[in-house]
């Protein structure tokens, strides 16, 4: 008798899947920094109220977010690494890139600051001192936008970090939060976007040691997946989201979003399309 009951239950679960909710939605592949900070959870309901379109977010690193676009698995991408974005467009996967906003990176480390970077003025100098101290530095190591930015900063220092991989330079191959968890456990330095850091709860002895140097600023762009390349993409709806995000209303909403009383993302949309890289 109970077996029959279980059987029926399972059948019901099946049926409920077949009749899963039917809504208009677009798929946005984006980065963990926009999603984990709560920005997208804040913006999407506003957009949905206006247009009735829901936005489903796949939050991964910039590298994978672009790959999802390349394979046609997302309708648009919101990422932060301009060279990769331009490559994405020049290969014909994306169209109409627009600047949306920027945020910034901060350097996180142990409270006692063994590498003594707290009073420095330039991010590059901070990285140099960390490399000289031998204190572990945890890199994302996952080809994300943050990882690429960090590699660029290391290049500016002239330190050949690959030579120290596995020594003091540790590549976590993980998201920002996971990387911060490791830095916490190892009493190490790391570079994080401000949003993830502010919403990160497992801090213990970690603290913000360095901030506010222009090389640490980080531009976000939104790109539509090319409807010529992939006929199935919801181009019209995706464009509505891109339009809204770069409109006065969307830009204001970005500016209004705060975490722990701090503004995280600074709107700077330009309506023009990055034509320089378009064929």
């Amino acid at each position, binding site marked *: 008798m109970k077996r029959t009951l279980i059987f029926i239950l399972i059948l019901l679960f099946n049926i409920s899947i077949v009749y899963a909710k039917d809504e208009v939605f677009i798929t946005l592949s984006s980065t963990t920094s926009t999603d984990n900070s709560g920005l997208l959870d804040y913006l999407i309901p506003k957009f949905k109220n206006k247009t009735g379109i829901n936005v489903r977010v796949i939050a991964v690193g910039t590298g994978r977010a672009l790959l999802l676009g390349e394979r046609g*698995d997302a309708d648009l991408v919101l990422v932060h690494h301009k060279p990769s974005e331009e490559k994405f467009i020049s290969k014909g996967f994306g169209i109409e890139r627009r600047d949306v906003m920027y945020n910034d990176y901060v350097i996180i480390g142990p409270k006692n600051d063994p590498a003594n970077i707290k009073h420095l003025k330039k991010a590059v100098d901070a990285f140099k001192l960390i490399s000289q101290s031998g204190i572990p530095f945890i890199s994302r190591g996952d080809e994300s936008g943050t990882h690429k930015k960090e590699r660029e900063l290391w290049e500016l220092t002239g330190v050949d970090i690959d030579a120290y991989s596995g020594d003091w330079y540790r590549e976590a191959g993980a998201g920002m939060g996971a990387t911060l968890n490791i830095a916490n456990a190892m009493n190490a330095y790391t570079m994080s976007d401000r949003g993830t850091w502010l919403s990160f709860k*497992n801090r213990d002895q970690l603290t913000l040691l360095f901030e506010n140097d222009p090389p640490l600023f980080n531009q976000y762009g939104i790109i539509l997946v090319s409807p010529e390349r992939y006929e199935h993409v919801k181009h019209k709806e995706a464009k509505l989201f891109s339009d809204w995000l770069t409109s006065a209303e969307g830009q204001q909403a970005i500016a209004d979003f705060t975490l722990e009383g701090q503004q995280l993302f600074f709107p700077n949309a330009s309506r023009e399309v990055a034509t320089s890289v378009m064929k």
Partner: protein
Amino acid sequence: MNDFSQAFAKALQLIFQLDPALLEIIGLSLRVSLTAVFIASLIGLPLGAALALYKFPGRGIIVALLNAFMGLPPVVVGLVVYLILSRSGPLGVLGLLFTPTAMIIAQVCLITPIVAALTRQTIMDANDEYHEQLRALGAKASRMMKTLLWETRFSLMTGVFAGFGRAIAEVGAVLIVGGNINHATRVMTTAIALETRKGDIELALALGIILITLSLIVTSLVMSAKHAAYQYHS
């Protein structure tokens, strides 16, 4: 220990508040994994029994593969299913990626080998025991298969629930093919991974406690049903 007591308090709080977001995630976890187990059993039970009773060329290889696939890494299964269901993949036109259906497919791939391999072992043992009797009654192989599956149904439940345990606990496959989309494909394990990433260890651990409790409830329900049925029969 403080971490654990805090997490436990948080878990109780979440359960008693009947947090709607939590209920949604629990519901989807159960739906996906129970459906996956149901489909995996439809395939795995007859497959395992057939491998135990029929002799045909290549059987050894299939059995070896099945045993090896019991330990398939979920991430690899997720990746393969992703490549197949991706818009650029062979089944991309179906548009199944990032849906619960995709998650069910991945879990079916993951647990069918477990159900089949354990079924094969159970049926083989039973066959050793009953073979002469059944043969004396003039049973054909197909008839024997049905009889043995029915006679060993209580033991087979163990295999089925080994599959369920794996399905409800895995994160690698559902994360890749589901995408952990809020209100669409977020399940218990991907929510736990997300909260860990965000450094909210307390909430992550609380969700973990709830997940384990959930497995416990499902398993004990089945165990008691099995027990009741067993008593009824004997």
